[in-house]
């Protein structure tokens, strides 16, 4: 059974869907904020997310706005994401709240993002996707795509978001997310 496939890529300086540039109005707030303003303005939870979640969230948002799923696909859509550095950027941000014994105020809203799979949860919540969500830490994106593709076919999953979402720091991130679905 063949799947329809579309994809999106986002870096700090570019956004492309199916290889074509996405137009947006750049500001000094950075690409994730700019894309958010264009595609998901009003979803206030975005501001609470860590960069990894913002990245996966906005990339998925654009994909699903252009390629809406049917209600049935929504119900079953799987989210299989991976990267090679887990939640390291946000881990470091959380560490800042506990490292100084004279200013030790562990932040719950940062701590919750110290798990890489939270991005899959944010997307599931936004789009009401009840399928499986899983996060892998792997050597490269080819390994993730091979693994996820095999799982999809083996389990006869109707629709899935498969994505490599990586964020080492605020200025160094990369998303390559595919949406696959059966007719």
């Amino acid at each position, binding site marked *: 059974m063949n799947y329809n496939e579309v994809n999106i890529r986002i870096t700090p300086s570019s956004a492309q869907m199916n290889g074509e540039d996405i137009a947006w109005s750049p500001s000094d707030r950075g690409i994730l904020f700019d894309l958010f303003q264009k595609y998901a303005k009003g979803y*206030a939870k975005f*501001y*609470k997310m860590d960069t990894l979640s913002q990245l996966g969230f906005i990339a998925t948002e654009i994909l699903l706005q252009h390629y809406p799923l049917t209600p049935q696909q929504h119900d079953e859509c799987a989210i299989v994401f991976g990267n090679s550095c887990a939640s390291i950027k946000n881990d470091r941000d959380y560490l800042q709240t506990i490292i100084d014994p004279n200013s030790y*105020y*562990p*932040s*719950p*809203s940062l701590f*919750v993002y110290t798990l890489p799979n939270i991005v899959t949860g944010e997307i599931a919540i936004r789009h009401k996707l009840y399928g499986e969500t899983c996060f892998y830490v792997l050597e490269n994106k080819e390994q993730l795509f091979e693994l996820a593709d095999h799982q999809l076919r083996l389990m006869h999953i109707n629709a899935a978001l498969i994505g490599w979402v990586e964020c080492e720091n605020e200025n160094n991130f990369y998303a390559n997310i595919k949406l696959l679905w059966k007719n």
Partner: protein
Amino acid sequence: MEELILELKQQIIEVLNFEDMTPTDIETDAPLFGEGLGLDSIDALELIVLLDKGYGIKLADPKAGKEVFKSVRVMAEYIQANRTK
């Protein structure tokens, strides 16, 4: 008191990342949870950190937060009565 209320609103906007809001958008007597600002359980925990960090108030039981975080005014009154810094 009014000064503390304004300060609190600014802090709430900052620690809870309400990017698009200004202090005038938060009603002093509106409920913070549910219908009003629509805060969730993580926001409540972050407000507990705010009380500790900003005013030296330790709220050990998160359930106690339900009373304290009823509205900005209730919060301000609680801070005034219990602050240690």
